[in-house]
């Protein structure tokens, strides 16, 4: 409390000083301006009266001053009280940071008496870590700047006043604790927020991914739809959808091309308008719950039916259909293909093939002519010799009729043989259309070999027939298949001729029936075989390894075999020989016959 009184004294002194300064000028002025000895009575009287007036005035002023002094004193006491009892700690430092004055709050805060604080370096009360900070703060203040120090536990507010620094220090400990707690909470909150954010980000990414996927699917769906639409309309085949009572629901662009009706003319009409004997059956009345969303199912395989064009003409069609249902209503989609062009082509192809086969047969016969001439010459030579022998025997003295008859019979057989060869040759080159009949393939092979006998003989070829017994008959055009056989045999002969003269030349023809009900014929030789480069071209038209020949033989042979629903293939090991084989289906009808 002593310190408190000191402080009061200071304030009083200060006030008194000010009061003196206020009072003195008037007194001094009176004393210096007048010299009483030189003045008259009147004048003195006047002066006296003036003095009296002044005195009265002074007395009044004094009273006022007294009053003011009293008020000031009260005010001072109030200030002192306020200063000391203020919750804010006040410290006054000099420019060196030494404490000059402190209030009670400051003393409490610092933990020592007010008197002990005065003359102490303020830094002592600052945490070593913050000393630098506080020094800097004070230096800043010295440079006339207002500043708020970020001390750990106190908040200082200071102002420079002449050579004194006034510091207002707030106890912010609680505030700090609260702040720390808040910071801690904040941190936790931030942590939670972070986690939440991470979760959200992940969720978001997943969602974005899903959105992308969905967009992609949507695009795909759109694309697919567009594609399907495109296919739907670009398709050569007519696509017709009918509902469960057979009314047309939709048609694509091709339907107009095929039938001649526009879409408008067809929607709502019955399917029989297009397909008089419709293969499309109206969907059966299926219980509702079964029709919810059935996958499309094929109601029938592709089959040929007859369609009716707008102009009334009929046309061959191929039809396939599928049934599906949407929302309990069943529909059938039928796809129809106009096969009239194909039928026409098939017919042309067949005619063309027949013509080509004929031309190549003529060519083949030309190539075989000398061999066949020899085949005819043999029996003719025999006939001539037999008959000449008969004539000679008849000229003899005794005629042996039995002997003559035997010789003539032989001559007759030979003549018939020659005739048969001529007949077969003529059949072979005759213009004809395909005529199928039940044929024993083995007999056909024997006949074909007979046609080539001369060539085989002259080319020193040893031939062997390995024909299976009890082969089912095949339903074929014998001339066309004979042509195939002759082609293959002649190819083998030509191949074998390329072997060195003394090398053994072998040709073998085999037949057998495989479990898939095909009769297979193999023509096998031990010739030079077929090189890799020849392999690719050998079945194509106009490719020939021979100096003479059109290069049509194998190509036409394959076409002929295929026209019989068979297949012609080959195997070859270059240097070891080649095997050509073809299959002919055994017809069930042929079996039954």
């Amino acid at each position, binding site marked *: 409390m002593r310190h408190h009184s000191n402080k009061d004294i200071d304030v009083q002194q200060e006030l008194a000083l000010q009061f003196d300064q206020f009072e003195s000028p008037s007194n001094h002025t009176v004393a210096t301006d007048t010299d009483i000895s030189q003045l008259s009575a009147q004048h003195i009287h006047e002066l006296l009266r003036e003095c009296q007036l002044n005195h009265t005035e002074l007395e009044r002023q004094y009273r006022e001053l007294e009053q003011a002094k009293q008020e000031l004193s009260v005010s001072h006491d109030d200030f002192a009280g306020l200063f000391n009892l203020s919750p804010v700690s006040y410290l006054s430092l000099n420019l060196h940071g030494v404490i000059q004055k402190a209030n009670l709050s400051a003393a409490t805060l610092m933990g020592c008496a007010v008197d002990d604080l005065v003359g102490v370096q303020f830094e002592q009360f600052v945490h070593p870590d913050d000393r630098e900070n506080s020094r800097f703060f004070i230096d800043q203040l010295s440079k006339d700047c207002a500043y708020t120090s970020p001390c750990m536990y106190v908040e200082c507010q200071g102002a420079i006043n002449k050579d004194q620094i006034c510091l207002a220090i707030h106890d912010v400990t609680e505030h700090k604790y609260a702040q720390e707690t808040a910071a801690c909470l904040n941190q936790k909150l931030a942590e939670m927020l972070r986690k939440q954010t991470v979760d959200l980000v992940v969720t978001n990414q997943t969602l974005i991914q899903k959105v992308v996927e969905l967009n992609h699917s949507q695009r795909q769906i759109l694309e697919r739809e567009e594609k399907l639409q495109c296919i739907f309309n670009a398709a050569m085949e007519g696509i017709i959808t009918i509902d469960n009572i057979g009314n047309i629901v939709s048609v694509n662009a091709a339907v107009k091309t095929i039938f001649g009706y526009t879409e408008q003319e067809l929607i709502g009409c019955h399917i029989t308008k297009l397909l008089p004997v419709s293969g499309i059956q109206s969907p059966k009345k299926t219980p509702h719950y079964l029709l919810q969303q059935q996958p499309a199912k094929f109601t029938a395989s592709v089959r040929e039916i007859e369609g009716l064009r707008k102009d009334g003409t009929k046309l061959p069609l191929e039809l396939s259909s599928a049934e599906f249902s949407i929302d309990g209503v069943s529909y059938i989609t039928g796809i129809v293909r106009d096969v009239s062009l194909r039928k026409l082509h098939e017919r042309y192809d067949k005619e063309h093939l027949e013509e080509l086969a004929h031309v190549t047969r003529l060519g083949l016969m030309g190539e075989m002519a000398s*061999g066949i*001439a020899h085949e005819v*010459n*043999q029996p003719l030579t025999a006939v001539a010799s037999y008959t*000449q022998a*008969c004539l*000679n025997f008849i000229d003899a003295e005794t005629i042996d009729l039995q002997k003559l008859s035997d010789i003539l019979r032989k001559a007759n057989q030979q003549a018939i043989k020659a005739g048969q060869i001529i007949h077969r040759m003529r059949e072979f080159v005759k213009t004809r259309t395909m005529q199928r009949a039940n044929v024993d393939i083995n007999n056909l092979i024997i006949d074909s070999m007979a046609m080539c006998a001369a060539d085989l*003989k002259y080319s020193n070829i040893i031939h062997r027939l390995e024909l299976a017994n009890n082969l089912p008959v095949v339903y074929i055009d014998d001339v066309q298949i004979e042509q195939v056989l002759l082609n293959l045999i002649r190819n083998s002969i030509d191949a074998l001729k390329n072997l060195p003269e003394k090398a053994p030349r072998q040709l073998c023809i085999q037949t057998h029936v495989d479990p898939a009900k095909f009769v297979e014929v193999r023509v096998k030789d031990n010739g030079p075989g077929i090189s890799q480069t020849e392999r690719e071209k050998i079945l194509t038209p106009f490719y020939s390894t021979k100096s003479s020949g059109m290069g049509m033989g194998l190509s036409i042979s394959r076409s002929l075999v295929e026209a019989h629903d068979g297949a012609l293939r080959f195997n070859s090991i270059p240097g070891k020989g080649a095997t050509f084989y073809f299959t002919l289906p055994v017809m069930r009808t042929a079996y039954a016959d």
Partner: protein
Amino acid sequence: MPTKKPGGLVYLVDDDFAIRDSLSLFIESTGQAVKSFESAEQFLQAYDQEQPGCLLLDVRMPVMSGLDLQDVLLKNNIDIPIIFISGHAEVSDSAKAFRAGAVDFIEKPFDNLVLLERIEEALNKDIDTRTEYAEKLKLMHSIDQLTLREKEVLHLIVNNCSSKEVASVLGISSRTVEVHRAHIMEKTHSESITQLLIMIVRYDVVTHLAIRQPPTSDNGH
């Protein structure tokens, strides 16, 4: 129908039964002996070189063809006349056959009478050949009987030298040459020196005499 039958046997080789059978019958019907074979190999096994005959041969046969057989016969110095019969005449075949000495090449079908003529010709040819061969052997044998000097004299005469020239070349008198000539004629049973010369040239036995080269024009007079 020729009535005169040359002796000898017709060999027929053809792989075709009908041809073999009919031709055999026909040739038999003319009174000519015939033997038929299915293959060249069978023929080679059965062939008797002493037996005069001719060969009717099919050009193309499996394993050994007619041309192959001709080749084998040639290599074995078997000079049987061959008539090729072919149903498949090719110029190259016939040329080859003729080059190798075939007497004929007939295409099927043929006129049997023509064939018969050719067979007779061939048989006669074979008989002639055989006769000539016998005569040649005889001539060669008689030449072998000559002395060395006689051979020298004959060789010079064959080379168109007169007796005078022969005497001059051999360094003997003309008279001695005449004596040698007489001996030569006697030993070769020749009627004249001209006939002997013809025989020598015909049977081509000049080489048989070649002991000394005839004089060139420089050496002679």
